[in-house]
Each structure stands twice: as C-alpha cells, then as structure tokens.
C-alpha cells in the first residue's frame, strides 16, 4: 500500500514541472489528479454513460472558470435547453442566469429537428463555427463546452461530412486558444458512441456509475492525458449541492505528524492497561467484539471523557439513532445529552445503505469540517460491509483514517465480530490501519456469558497483555481482574465462586491459627504456674534451711560458752584448754 502511495505522490508531484500549460477546473480533486487541470487551449473529452454527470462536470468547469478564474465561457448545448440548464445547475448552487446576464457565460442551445431537415447537396458546419465564434467573441470566452456534439450524428445526414467537420472544428478551437470540453455518450465497448475520442486526443476523462447492493457509486478515471502525468486510478466522486467533489485524496502520503499526547479512554482501569495513560492523540482505535459486548458503551465513555476535557466529538452511528444511544447510555450512568446540548457532542445517524460509500465518506468529512472535532467515532464500520465489498470498505476507511491523521483527529471505530468467528478477526480487514485495538469478548461458561476485555495491540506503548473481565452496571464500566488460580482463568459467577471458596478456606485457616495460638498461650500459662510453684517450694526450703543453720550456730555458740564456763570451774590450763576444748567440740 505504501509503495502505491509513494508512486502516486511521485506522479502527482513531479520533480520538474515541465508540462504543457493547463487551466484549473476548480472542481475539487480533479485539479489534483490531473496535476493542474485540463490542457490549456485544447479539447478534453468527458465521456460516460447516461446519468454519470458528464454535463454537470462540463458545466462546472465552465461556471467555476467564469466565477473563480475570471475566464468567461460558452456552453453550447445540443441536448438541453437553456432554461433546463439554468434549473439544473441551480440545484448545485450555481447562478447560471446571473452569469449570463453579467456576460460571463453564454449558453447557446442548438436545436435540431431531424424531421425538418432535408439534405440536398454538399454542406459544411460553417454556421456552427460562426455561432460559436460570435459567442466566444461576445464575452471574450476562454472556455468552451460542447455538450453533446455527438448528437449531430443522429440529427444530420452524411456522417463522413460530419467527421471531417468535427476535425476542422477542433483544429479551429485550438487556433482560437480556447480550452474546450466535449462530452460524449459512452458506447457499448467504446468510450463514446460515435468514436468522438478520435477527435479529442489530448485528454480523455471517463465517468462511470456502478450499482452495488442497491447503492450507486460514481467513479472518475483519466483514460489519457497526452503530455502530462496524471493519476491512473478510478477515483470515486460524489455530486451533491455543491457540485462534483472527488473524494479527497489530498494527503495520501504517509507523512502525518504524530502526537505523544495521551488521552483517557474514559475508563480509568483501561487507561492503566494502556501503558497507564490511555490512547495516543491522533491514533486510530478499533473496538471490536461480538454483538452485545458493550462496544457502544466503551465508545460512549470515550466520547464522554473527551467532552469532559472540553473537546469536541463527532459520533457517527450507522445502526442506532442518537436518541437511542443517549437513552441507552443513561442506563450505564452516562448523560450524553448534556454534551449534545452544549454543542460539544455531535451525533449523526445514517443507515449504511442510505448512500454510497464515497458519499458516506464525503458527508462525514463535511460534518468533520464543520465541527472541527478532536475525536471522531464511527459505530460500527462493519455495517459498511453490507453495502460494499470489503476491499472498497477498506479503501474508504483508509482514506478516512488518512484524513483523520492529517488533521490530528483521534478516530475510534466500532467493529462487529460476527458470532462464530474468532474474536481477533475483524469483519472488515482494517487491522493494519489500527493503532490501538481493544477486543471485547464474551466467553460462555457455566450457563452464563461474561465480558472480557483484551488489548490486542496498541502501537507505541507498553500495554497490558492480560484479559480482564469487565462488568457493565448502572455505575458504568468496571474492569476487574479475572480469577487466575489452580483451576485456570475464571470469570463471572465462576470467578465469584472461586473467590468464595478461597474465602472459606481462609476462614478455616484463620481459625486454626487462632486455635494454636490459644493452645500455646495455655501451655505458657501452665509453664508459668509450674515455675511459680517450684519457686515457692524452693523458697520454703531455703527458708527452712537457713533457719536450721541459724539454730545450729546458736547452739554451737551456747556449747562453747558452756564449756568455758565449766573450764573455769575446773581451773584448766589457760593455754591448752582451748585446743582440747575445740577438739572435743567437734
């Protein structure tokens, strides 16, 4: 993809612009893919089937020339009358009548009634030249449209003469120096029914309209552009009240400025999972999940958080009306209508099949241009899968993403995962465009469905790799851990069950501990009392022993005293007596 983009860029932006002179058409997008408009002073052919917008495109080229570039123009109409043309272009916002009055535009309706005409001899188209010349000179025209000059073939006899005359006409126009646009009805296998492309060799633009699933989409392709580089793709375009717009491809270059600013998802725990700070500003976020997993709730929370930060949000819904979303979000505690009233939140609802993909993209971009939001939410993008093939949806979203990135807008897409598919497969294969992908899932177990959230990827941040369970209640979204234990991962009732079991087990353990503590305490008490008793016994023993010792001492002292007294009585020698006496006392 990026290679293609680079090539396109090179094609659109050649290094040296030595190309033939061009005139801007003023039609959004056309000037870009033609690298500056149509070849100046030459004729370009716009061909296509009925109702593809040939006349309108030619007319817009002329009117924008007169209005924006001060290049008056002549519109030579072979199929529609002046009044019809005035009415037709009024519907796309052009005042053709005013431009005619102010001599910026001349409309010459060439009316040919085939039944009136008889050919009687050789003729040429000098009168047409004179007519055109007079009109060009009258206003100094620089642009000429011939719509559809081919119809001459069905109204005038002798095609050979006509061919020669048309060759002469285009040479003459070139000499006149006017830039011409010719329209041609597409033939079965040819660009135009009468092979008018052979006269106009410089630039051929083909318009087509295709119907896919009841929805029409218009495409434009530059078939050839002699002497100029040009985009070669089929470019989708839309016709609305402002005329033709090529769906902008202005910035199909991978050169977006990136932001390091982080913005909250509106759910604190999710921010934590996203590296602790939420999404990157200007990133592209995908919320995918099966039906009923809460995608809209997540997106509404994101919107709510942005509005709280005083940022503008545009919310495109393709399945629910704004009123319904607001009501539903009230039930989870979000009041979005306050933001709508404040003008911070713009909600747009459309059925996907209301218009073609490109029109959707175009309308979305118009709303975005008008409101200049910081955040754009599309809920869900998978509904485009109903109206177009996945490749086109991806292309459209790619353009959209590209635009959002160039504007620095954070985009959030909802994506419905069809039941039965793995949850990490988005119905629309846009995963490569996504910066942050939140996958919601609803595993079923034990007769209940629970909601799980998982960050499938989030570029540029260290995000959580855990599956979390989340609950949506009237307080909003609550993300909790899943139970991870011996029995594996459990959610919902199973998780609560596990938790209860764990709690019971804990209680039991607690009791046991308490019991042991009590026992220990008891033993300590017993020990203490024993020690006390022993101590008391010892104390009693000690007291009695001490008493006996004291008594003995007293007695011995008494004996000694008695003996001395006796000795005195017997008149024993003073010197020897103590020894003898001592011995005896022992």
């Amino acid at each position: 993809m990026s290679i293609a983009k680079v090539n396109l860029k090179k094609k659109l932006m050649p290094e040296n612009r030595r190309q033939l002179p061009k005139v801007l058409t003023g039609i959004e997008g056309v000037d870009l893919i033609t690298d500056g408009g149509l070849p100046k002073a030459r004729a370009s052919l716009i061909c296509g089937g009925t109702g593809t917008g040939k006349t309108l495109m030619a007319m817009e080229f002329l009117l924008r020339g007169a209005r924006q570039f001060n290049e008056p123009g002549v519109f030579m109409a072979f199929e529609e009358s002046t009044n019809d043309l005035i009415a037709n272009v009024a519907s796309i916002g052009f005042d053709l009548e005013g431009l005619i009055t102010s001599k910026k535009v001349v409309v010459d309706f060439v009316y040919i009634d085939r039944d009136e005409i008889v050919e009687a001899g050789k003729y040429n188209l000098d009168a047409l030249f004179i007519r055109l010349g007079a009109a060009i000179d009258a206003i100094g025209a620089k642009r000429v449209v011939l719509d559809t000059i081919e119809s001459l073939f069905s109204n005038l006899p002798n095609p050979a003469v006509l061919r020669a005359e048309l060759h002469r006409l285009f040479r003459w126009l070139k000499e006149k120096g006017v830039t011409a646009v010719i329209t041609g009805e597409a033939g079965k296998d040819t660009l135009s029914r009468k092979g008018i492309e052979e006269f106009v060799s410089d630039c051929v633009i083909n318009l087509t309209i295709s119907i896919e699933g009841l929805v029409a989409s218009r495409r434009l392709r530059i078939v050839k552009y002699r002497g100029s580089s040009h985009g070669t793709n089929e470019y989708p375009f839309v016709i609305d009240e402002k005329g033709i717009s090529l769906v902008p491809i202005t910035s199909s270059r991978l050169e977006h400025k990136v932001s390091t600013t982080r913005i909250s998802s509106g759910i604190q725990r999710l921010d934590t999972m996203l590296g602790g700070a939420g999404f990157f500003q200007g990133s592209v976020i995908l919320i995918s999940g099966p039906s009923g997993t809460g995608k809209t709730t997540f997106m509404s929370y994101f919107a709510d958080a942005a509005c709280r930060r005083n940022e503008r949000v545009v919310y495109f819904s393709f399945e629910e009306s704004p009123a319904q979303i607001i009501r539903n979000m009230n039930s989870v505690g979000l009041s979005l209508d306050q933001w709508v009233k404040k003008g911070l939140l713009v909600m747009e609802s459309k059925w996907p099949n209301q218009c073609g993909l490109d029109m959707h993209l175009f309308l979305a971009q118009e709303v975005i241009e008008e409101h200049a939001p910081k955040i754009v939410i599309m809920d869900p993008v998978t509904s485009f899968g109903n109206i177009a093939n996945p490749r086109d949806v991806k292309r459209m979203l790619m353009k959209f993403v590209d635009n959002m990135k160039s504007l620095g807008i954070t985009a959030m897409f909802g994506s419905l995962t069809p039941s039965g598919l793995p949850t990490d497969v988005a119905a629309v294969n846009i995963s490569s465009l996504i910066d942050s992908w939140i996958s919601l899932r609803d595993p079923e177990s034990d007769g209940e469905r629970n909601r799980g959230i998982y960050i499938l990827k989030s570029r540029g941040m260290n995000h959580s790799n855990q599956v979390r369970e989340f609950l949506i209640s009237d307080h909003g979204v609550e993300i909790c851990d899943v139970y991870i234990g011996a029995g594996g991962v459990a959610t919902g009732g199973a998780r609560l069950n596990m938790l209860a079991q764990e709690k019971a087990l804990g209680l039991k353990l607690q009791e046991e501990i308490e019991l042991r503590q009590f026992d220990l305490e008891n033993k300590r008490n017993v020990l203490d009392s024993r020690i006390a008793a022993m101590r008391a016994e010892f104390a009693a023993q000690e007291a009695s022993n001490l008493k006996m010792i004291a008594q003995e001492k007293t007695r011995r002292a008494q004996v000694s005293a008695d003996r001395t007294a006796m000795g005195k009585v017997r008149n024993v020698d003073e010197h020897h007596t103590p020894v003898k006496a001592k011995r005896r006392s022992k």
Partner: protein
Amino acid sequence: MTDKPIDLRVHQKKETANAQSKKWILRLYVAGTTTRSMSAISNIKKICEEKLNGRYVLEVIDLYQQPLLAAGHQIIAIPTLIRELPPPLRRIIGDLSDTEKVLEGLDLKSL
C-alpha cells in the same frame, strides 16, 4: 395521433393551395462568397423561377455579415435554406444541387 393521416392530407391540400396562390418566403443562409454559397444561390433561384414564378421572396443572409442570426435562427450547416412560409417550417441543407431533394423538401414536387 390516431387522426394524423387525415390531418396530413388536409395540410397537404392547404399547402398546395397556398403554393398556388400565396407568397412564399424563403431564406438562404450562406457564409461568404464561396463557390458553394454561390451555387446554392443560383440553384434555388432557378428552382423558384421555375416553380414559383413571381410568388416568392428569397432572402439571402450572409452569416459572416450577421453572425448573431446563426444562433437566433438555429442554423448550423451552410448552406441552409429555410421555408418560412407557407408553414410548416422546412430546412434544406446543402448546396441545393440535388433538385429532386430540394423540390421534395419544399413540397414543390406536385407543382
């Protein structure tokens, strides 16, 4: 639509009557004095003299002189001969060298 053939017959009768009695007004548009223009002028003059002796007005308009008339009168081919009167309006393009076709175109065959 259903009574168209009847209508046509009535018209043709009227025209024939007109052709015999009333004046014819013819306009020939040319561009400059090219040989083709010149031969167209002489061709129509000859036919008119033969068929409408004295009962016609032929106006030759050179669009180079009056270019705005080309758009005004819805002319694209040169030369163009227009039968203004009697109605209905007829256009014959070419240098009028094919006399049969001219008479057919002008409804003068019966005369």
